[in-house]
């Protein structure tokens, strides 16, 4: 397939169009050189505005909503990613038709019910009503318009994409050592099924943030390099801000979130020695990657168990 078409049909389709409109690739006209970065900074502000409006809509006090939005806007990671020329915050504002289709559909058609039991709920997720709802969404029309190439480059890419370079994904080492074995396809399928299993249950507003966190954490690839690859962390960082106001974590438990930085720094130190010093730290990166997964799962588990929906909070104050 033509390389230009591959780029066009990637998830950054709209971003590329915007950049072309600004003429950022016109070297002659230096005035337009930084327009792409201005666009990404603008999307940071737009994300913050959307977060603020959503938080206020879900009964957060304006002052508290401002604090939570500041955690997104003044986050060094957010600022560094956008000014380096990555469009992750723009992606956070857009809706992924595939990853968020399921929680949106479940909310519209009717969420799983505890009375049905776990296995029956999983089966229900592939029900006729849900299938019909998906058929009426935008995805099939877009796919028909642009064909298989669009589906492949925009959505299926994440299903099949494998990057054997060291990254935060817990599957990195496994995919690197098994890259040339035919049965590695089975392992890729296992990774995807585990990811899919976790994505199937939850309510909408809470789900998008946990959904994205689970998607990123259990993905086969998870990078945070800039500016030559995606910064996966930003995908859920933005949405996690939405649920912070509804967490009932105590300060002691909240401090446990610092574990995330400890896990990340541990991985980064070994990755640095591999990439820039040439030390053979593949085994240490593997262990650090698994440890990072355990820490992330523990934090996610704590967030899930201490989240209170708006209705529960209102009832409590009545």
């Amino acid at each position, binding site marked *: 397939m033509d390389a230009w078409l591959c780029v066009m049909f990637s998830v950054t389709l709209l971003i590329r169009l915007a950049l072309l409109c600004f003429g950022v690739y016109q070297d002659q006209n230096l005035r337009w050189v930084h327009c792409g970065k201005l666009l990404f900074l603008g999307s940071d502000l737009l994300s913050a505005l959307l977060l603020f409006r959503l938080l206020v809509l879900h009964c957060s006090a304006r002052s508290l909503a401002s604090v939570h939005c500041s955690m997104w806007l003044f986050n060094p990671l957010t600022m560094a990613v956008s000014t380096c020329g990555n469009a992750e915050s723009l992606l956070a504002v857009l809706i992924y038709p595939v990853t968020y289709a399921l929680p949106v559909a479940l909310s519209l058609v009717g969420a799983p019910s505890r009375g049905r039991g776990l296995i029956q709920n999983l089966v229900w997720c592939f029900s006729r009503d849900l299938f019909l709802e998906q058929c009426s969404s935008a995805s099939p029309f877009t796919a028909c318009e642009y064909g298989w190439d669009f589906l492949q480059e925009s959505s299926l890419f994440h299903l099949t994409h494998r990057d054997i370079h060291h990254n935060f994904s817990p599957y990195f080492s496994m995919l690197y050592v098994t890259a040339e074995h035919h049965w590695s396809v089975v392992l890729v399928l296992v990774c995807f099924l585990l990811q899919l299993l976790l994505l199937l249950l939850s309510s909408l507003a809470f789900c998008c943030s946990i959904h994205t966190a689970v998607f990123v954490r259990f993905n086969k690839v998870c990078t945070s390099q800039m500016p030559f690859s995606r910064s996966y962390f930003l995908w859920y960082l933005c949405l996690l801000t939405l649920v912070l106001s509804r967490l009932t974590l105590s300060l002691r438990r909240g401090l446990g979130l610092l574990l995330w930085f400890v896990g990340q720094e541990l991985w980064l130190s070994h990755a640095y020695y591999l990439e*820039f010093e040439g030390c053979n730290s593949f085994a240490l990166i593997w262990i650090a990657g698994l440890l990072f997964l355990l820490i992330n799962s523990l934090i996610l588990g704590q967030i899930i168990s201490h989240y209170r929906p708006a209705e529960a909070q209102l009832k409590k104050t009545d």
Partner: protein
Amino acid sequence: MFRCCLLVTLLCFIHRGNSEEDCFPSEWLKSVSMSVKISKAGFHRDLHYRVQWSKTEQEVHALLVQKLPSGVYMDEYQLDTLRRDTGLEVLLDSKVDVEAPEYLSSGFTALVFLSGRREAVVPVHGRYHRPSDSSKRVKVELESPRLLLRSEQCERGVAVDAPCTASNHSICSWTEILELEDHAGVSLELPVGDSSMIISVCGVTVLTTVLCCVYLLRNIWKHGSF
């Protein structure tokens, strides 16, 4: 347009003669020397090229033809940025997949233009190699580049045809310097994974992810609102 430029580049080097003497004085040619060094460590290295010659009234342009094996690659986007920021002029003869491992890649050729300058620092990156159960590192050898010279004042003597500049709009006649001081190319060592750990890596990874999955599912089922 881009494919045509690549094709033109590939069609170069069609004629090799022994006509060094036609354009440059043979005495002057003996003063030409070249050195190649590699710096930094790990997967990201810099190739330092330096070409020297004695004073001449002619305006001399130098072109280094560096063949690179499948174990390394150059990033065309990085080279593009460097061309805008520092004036480094490097042309690659084919598209390079920056993510592919060594065993799925092929070698390529880089043309390093030294117009108006006599040295250049070109970034080169190591590819991931096949895991090994016998060795923790792998050595990648880079052969010594070919040196071509061209003068604006001299149109005689066709030795080698190659692009005039990195923009690859036209072809010029270059003179290859064959009698350089003999020096070996450079090499770099890259770490490789341990293939003897396949079973333990797969087993422990799957087990850990399944445990995390079960933990999260349990929490979602227990505390989720249904």
